[in-house]
């Protein structure tokens, strides 16, 4: 089955990320995002015949897709929950494209969001909630700091193998902040950031500084994926799904084949191959940015620069919306916050906004092709998309 160009993104929505849930629950947030995305697609709720959701943050995950469908009073021909950590949102869009390409659904709603406080992963309970049995037994006794220490291990190894510097990594957060200043939805859009400020922020898990780490928050986001031929009636220019790919080599980073050669490479290669394009053809990229090192590794692994050259590449490339390779022009999660699983949807949504020409003051000039990557766990699950504008 030929998949490229069979599905298009016709609707998007993103609630402003909030520092707390303001008394709302995941279901409420999802319902708000659903209404806005369906409206954006020019559809009625009754047009939705597919539902893909990411897991809840506080309710039971048992029968979660049905819980969401019941709240929304949607009666889909196919429904499911996608749990790939940070890659879940992009994973929903991938699977929605499959469902519409296969003719199972016409309009598939991808819903993501949740209620997270700042300290969601900080204490033992928070850390244990996202650890496997093996991690609890063989890793926790040594005092790992969850995702922070996992990515710190990767950053340290990258520095050792390739001479990557803290300054180079810090610049990623700085460039993203320049774009975030023009994003009214970003939690951190009040003032510019400098490399010195990033490096002066506390070293949380050496070599990672506080301002290189996402801040968990609350929010929701939604995407409507439609069969390509029906997308032509949509009010906004449809964004075609040209290619997609996924890959996974491990759950815990302890058992990753490598800290610097990651499954991102294979996932991106699959997406580019399906789309029949190369990294150099991209006008912008939206890369999962739980930490600065994640962006650097993704640029290398997806082929935007040679492996090991990421540090020098980001140092010499303007990654802001005005730059040679606009990257995370919404500010990324590093400036917007990470509203649970919807953090990963923000990368899809910003790429769609840019390709539609709806990015306002941070609009990039060339807007034909975008690469999106979702990343889950510690460089574990990967879900990539190549998107095309009209």
């Amino acid at each position, binding site marked *: 089955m030929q998949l490229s160009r069979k599905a298009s993104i016709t609707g998007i929505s993103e609630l402003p990320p909030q520092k707390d849930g303001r008394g709302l629950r995941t279901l409420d947030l999802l319902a708000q995002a659903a209404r806005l995305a369906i409206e954006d697609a020019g559809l009625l709720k009754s047009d939705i015949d597919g539902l893909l959701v990411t897991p809840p943050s506080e309710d039971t995950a048992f029968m979660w897709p049905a819980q969401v469908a019941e709240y929304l009073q949607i009666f889909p021909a196919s429904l499911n929950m996608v749990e790939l950590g940070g890659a879940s949102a992009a994973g929903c869009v991938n699977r929605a494209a499959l469902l519409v390409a296969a003719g199972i659904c016409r309009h598939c709603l991808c819903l993501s969001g949740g209620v997270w406080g700042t300290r969601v992963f900080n204490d*033992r309970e928070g850390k244990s909630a996202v650890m496997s049995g093996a991690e609890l037994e063989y890793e926790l006794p040594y005092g790992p700091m969850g995702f922070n220490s996992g990515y710190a*291990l990767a950053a*340290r190894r990258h520095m050792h*193998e390739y001479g990557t510097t803290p300054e180079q990594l810090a610049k990623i957060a700085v460039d993203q902040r320049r774009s975030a200043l023009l994003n009214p939805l970003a939690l951190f859009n009040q003032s510019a950031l400098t490399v010195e400020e990033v490096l002066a922020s506390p070293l949380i*898990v*050496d070599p990672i500084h506080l301002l290189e780490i996402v801040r968990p928050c609350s929010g929701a986001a939604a995407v409507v994926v439609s069969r390509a031929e029906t997308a032509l009636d949509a009010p906004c220019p449809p964004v075609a799904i040209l290619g997609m790919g996924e890959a996974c080599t491990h759950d815990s980073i302890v058992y990753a084949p490598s*800290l610097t050669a990651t499954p991102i490479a294979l996932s991106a290669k699959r997406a580019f191959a399906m789309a029949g394009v190369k990294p150099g053809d991209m006008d912008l990229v939206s890369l999962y940015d739980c930490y600065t090192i994640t962006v650097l590794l993704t640029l290398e692994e997806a082929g935007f620069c040679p492996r090991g050259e990421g540090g020098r590449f980001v140092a010499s490339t303007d990654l802001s919306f005005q730059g040679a390779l606009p990257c995370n022009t919404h500010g990324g999660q590093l400036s917007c916050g990470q509203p649970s699983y919807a953090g990963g949807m923000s990368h899809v949504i910003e790429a769609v906004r840019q390709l539609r020409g709806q990015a306002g003051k941070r609009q990039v000039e060339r807007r034909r092709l975008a690469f999106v990557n979702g990343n889950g766990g510690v460089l574990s699950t990967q879900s990539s998309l190549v998107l095309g504008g009209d």
Partner: protein
Amino acid sequence: MPESFIDFFKEKCKHGELWLPYCPHCQKAFFYPRRQCPFCLAEGWQWKPASGRGRVYSYTIVRVSALDEFRGATPYVYALIDLEEGVRLASNVVDCPEEILRPDMPVKLAWVTREGRQLPVFVPRDGD
């Protein structure tokens, strides 16, 4: 033996010995211990004592710990250790000045007692 593989591992640790699961079909050690060999999925694997020699693959220095039992222990080194047997495990590097700590440095097995449990950790050793 597979029924009690976690107990076996812990019992050996209690006596200051690090043993690894070894699959005779695959002729490879693996970690963490589990009922079936992760390479061939067969159950008939064996235990073998580890040499205790390895290298630091990577490390991070935890300066702020959210775990109660580590609050007084910061800064401490959380590390990935590549053992000579070809397995990688999470551990700590102890008794090592920060100035000499680096990826690829040779280390050898040592033991600490934490929360009443004897845990394999690693200390620097002379290169080979």
